């Protein structure tokens, strides 16, 4: 359903990129602080669904031209893959590789964990599920 309000339409232009950025921030921050894939994905999906409310379904398709189902598949595959790869090296399921590397432009070493890919997968699943569910339900109601 679309709400034809010029205020919402114009403010969405500002809100949308900020929300998407914040979703990524919340996802990345989840390694050490509150946040993570689920929360990031939820914020992301909220942004897209609000955009759909203000601009309509066609605009949402332009913004996210991929069917949510493929996001779910990609995310689940990514999460399952990251957690199953350690099995090949004789480690238990879900074992995360951690380490640090130095970036050329930063004094601090960059700390990475392979759990990040898992989290990204979770985020994709959540975005896919939430957007897909709302799209389906609102199509049904229209």
């Amino acid at each position, binding site marked *: 359903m679309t709400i034809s309000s010029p205020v919402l339409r114009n403010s969405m232009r500002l809100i949308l990129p900020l929300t998407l950025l914040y979703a990524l921030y919340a996802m990345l921050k989840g390694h050490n602080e509150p946040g993570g894939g689920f929360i990031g994905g939820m914020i992301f999906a909220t942004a897209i669904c609000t955009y759909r409310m203000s601009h309509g379904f066609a605009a949402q398709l332009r913004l996210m031209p991929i069917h949510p*189902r493929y996001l779910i598949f990609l995310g*689940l595959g990514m999460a399952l893959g990251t957690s199953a790869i350690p*099995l090949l090296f*004789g480690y*238990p*399921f879900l074992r995360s590789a951690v380490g640090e590397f130095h970036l050329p432009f930063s004094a601090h070493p960059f700390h990475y964990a392979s759990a990040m890919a898992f989290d990204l997968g979770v985020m994709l699943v959540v975005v896919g599920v939430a957007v897909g569910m709302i799209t389906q339900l609102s199509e049904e109601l229209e």
Partner: protein
Amino acid sequence: MKLENFIILFIVIPMGSGVIGVFLKERVRIARVLGVMSFLATASLAIGLLIHLRSHPTGILVSQMGAWPAPYGISVVFDSLSGLLLAASSLVALACYVHSFSTVEPIAEKRYFHPMVQLLMFGVNLAFLTGDLFNLFVSFEIMLMASYCLLTFGGTRLQMTQAYKYVLLNLVGSTLFVIGAGLVYGMTGTLNFADLALFVSKRQAEGRSLPPGFAALSISLLLVFGLKGAIFPLWFWLPDTYYTCNVSIAGLFAGMLTKVGIYAIARTFPMIFAHGNSDANRIVMPLLAVSAAFTMFLGVLGAVSHHNIRRILAVHVISQVGYMVFGLALMTGVALAGCLFYMIQHMVVKSCLFLCCGIMERHTGTDDLEKSGGLLKRDWYLGVVFFIAAMSLVGLPPLSGFFGKLVIIREGWESKWWLSIFGLLTGALTLLSMLKIWGYAFWSPSAKAIERTPQNMSNTSSLRPAYVGATLLVLVALFLGFGAQPVYDIAFRAGNQLVNPDEYISAVLGPHALDELTQYRQQEATRLAAAAAVEVMP
């Protein structure tokens, strides 16, 4: 790859094939092959591990997820109990899945039928393997979610309205489970089964009582598991649910869903929530005993009164669950082994009966006993399969049901003889209701009013997968009957490990976890010996 790492495959394989299955929408043939491969893989893995572990000192394999040590991380535990159930459930799933090729509507197959079956098994396998209470909740939810979807696949009005009963009831049950898990964490500071068992054993060895409210907690969890397992006051959702859905799915549900509830009781109650001689034990045991009597007897009375094959079978599930609860109510190692054996054989046999029922419905076009008949003349092979399965369910001697009932009833004869009498009576009534199906559907002369609809005139080649599924299960049932000894060897080990969880605790938490406990026990023993010496002195 280390042996411990293999057990996670029980979770990865169904989940992976479920994920891939979502994308095989129109490619039904590939989806079927993938599903069969997945179930074959888990079944052979379970059987292989069980055979391999027979010479293992404890028979327990533990994998710590992400290599986080036990009470903090997530443990996945493969022991004799979960191994036997995994093997049986994978075989049952394989058979029901193959059977569904001839019963499921083509439209459902293109709409995520295959991934949903895989996800159901993902949840079931996770439930059997998980080593902590919260993941048990998660696996229940995965399993229930898939079962909600499978229930409503036809999309008819009757299915919808029946689904609400099932869905809403289970949602309330899940909420209770979350609250229960939170309470357990609040009281003990841990959710790991081994750690909880250690906590309870330690408190008892020290002679201290458990935290106040622990008994209430036990009962609320019993309520949750009992709802899933359909024990006495909580079974009203079951007959309608199994009556409305696709018959292969009903077979799968009859095999899996209630057993997972009973498994949860068997896993947590002897080890933790009713362990040893605690308040919780004193309250839970009579509850279980009374519930077992009512579940057995009322279930079979319901079955005797119905005149519809599917309803008879569905109501029978309740009555058989009663036997398992009977085994649980005795809570000795032998009784739990009997309960486990009975669970396995009931999974196999009951699903087999549902699969036969599916073929019968196709032959006669009805599941009403009054209208059907003459099946023995028309299809003697189905008659043989049905007869073996039905007699296994009743428990005639060389067949599998006998060995399950024998152990439970003999073990119960000394402490709870009245329950054993209920059990024997139920067995007789089970025979009556099975003979009713046999007499009406197979032996009676061919019914006049069989409508020759295109559905029941369908050529037998489309029924071939259905026969394959039923045959597989009847072979497993025969193996359980004639080869009961090797299965019971593993089951006895499982039963003893449940009653005396020391081996489980040290396998999960590491060899030093028990040090403090043995110290307390030795102190207690010396104190008792000293007290006895003082008594003797004067």
